[in-house]
């Protein structure tokens, strides 16, 4: 297993040099073999994965907040139940992902510390507010929709624990997107006030969702290596294009307008052409100056700090039980 063997890593493989090991590693990746926790891997591969998986995990955790704050205000019991289940799933995804990251030799507490101290990044999308009920629907439809685009290819990524976690996540994520779209549909087909609520939410979330796929390929720093190692299987622009092409007809069905005056179907390219993305906003939000960055992190820090006595008590009790069992055995 992971945690135990990491100190053994170097000993038996010292006979082969780094270059040969890397060649063997790349050959395995090319052959679509899965890399497992105790297999030799380049340090950069390990570190890239830790960064990517933990960012993904942090995003799920922080993502519980913008939707979680609507649980108490959900307009029907069924919607309340669906929302609780969804947020519970997101927490679960965070747990699967932290668990996958831990197989690479980092501890959950270290990762949480990085998040709370502001060192670690998480998806910028969760730094936007959810001022109305329609925002909950927009998140399910657009944000989860974009996430699915990113995540399905990851089910085939080269690192075993991450791929397996993603299979679990993808199974649950499609339920989330359907629920979000269903929510939007009820609003779009409801009263004029409800339809307006839905349109305004779409206006707020469209561009942040489009930006979720990251910078344009030309400006993306890590892409080449990640694709070589099959951690990333499609480029940012490819996934973004696919997302737009899928989503435009969905918006049309709802009779809601996508807030992009330059959006049009290109018959020759057989895809949608869309307007320029405002990357300055993206950069600001990524740097921590988004509308809710401070609030989200503050909420997580508060929860963590307020829960310290609870975690300590549980550890203390477990220790007492160990001693009692030892005494009985003696």
């Amino acid at each position: 297993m992971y945690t135990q063997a990491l100190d053994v890593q170097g000993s038996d493989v010292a006979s082969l040099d780094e270059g040969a090991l890397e060649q063997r590693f790349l050959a395995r990746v090319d052959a679509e073999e899965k890399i497992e926790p105790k297999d030799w891997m380049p340090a950069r591969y390990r570190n890239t994965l830790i960064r990517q998986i933990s960012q993904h995990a942090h995003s799920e955790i922080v993502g519980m907040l913008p939707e979680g704050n609507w649980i108490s205000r959900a307009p029907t019991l069924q919607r309340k139940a669906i929302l609780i289940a969804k947020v519970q799933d997101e927490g679960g995804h965070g747990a699967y992902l932290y668990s996958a990251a831990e197989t690479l030799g980092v501890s959950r507490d270290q990762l949480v510390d990085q998040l709370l101290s502001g060192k670690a990044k998480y998806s910028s999308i969760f730094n936007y507010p959810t001022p109305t009920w329609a925002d909950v629907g927009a998140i399910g439809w657009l944000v989860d929709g974009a996430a699915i685009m990113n995540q399905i290819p990851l089910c085939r990524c080269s690192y075993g624990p991450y791929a397996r976690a993603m299979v679990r996540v993808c199974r649950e994520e499609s339920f989330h997107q359907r629920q979000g779209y269903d929510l939007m549909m009820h609003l779009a087909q409801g009263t004029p006030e409800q339809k307006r609520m839905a349109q305004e939410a779409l206006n707020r979330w469209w561009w942040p969702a489009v930006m979720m796929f990251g910078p344009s390929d030309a400006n993306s720093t890590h892409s080449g290596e990640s694709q070589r190692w099959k951690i990333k299987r499609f480029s940012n622009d490819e996934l973004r294009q696919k997302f737009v092409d899928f989503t435009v007809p969905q918006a049309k069905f709802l009779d809601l307008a996508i807030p992009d005056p330059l959006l049009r179907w290109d018959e020759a390219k057989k895809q949608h052409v869309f307007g320029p993305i405002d990357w300055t906003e993206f950069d600001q939000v990524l740097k921590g100056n988004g509308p809710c960055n401070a609030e989200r992190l503050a909420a997580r820090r508060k929860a963590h700090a307020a829960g310290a006595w609870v975690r300590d008590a549980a550890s203390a009790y477990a220790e007492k039980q160990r001693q009692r069992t030892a005494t009985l055995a003696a």
Partner: protein
Amino acid sequence: MSTPIDDSRQWPLYEVFVRARGGLDHKHVGSLHAADARMAIDHARDLYTRRLEGISIWVVPSKDITASDPAETDSLFEPARDKIYRHPTFYEIPDEVKTL
């Protein structure tokens, strides 16, 4: 501002194995943190069997699992390849004996 990590108070890592249905083996599904084994079972139920995915859960502290070393893969597993008499295809069964 971050809460300092006190390693002695960390909840240990447990590996989780779930038997999805009667007749199947327990399968490794991932890991989780818990302060004690009973909590680990509760957490495993909440995390890995939310959608009725299991009828039996095993949890084991990760540190108690011993694993084979991939670097020794050749010596641990290769020998079976020369020992061809373990595989049914080695034996030529006459056509008349169809049910074997």
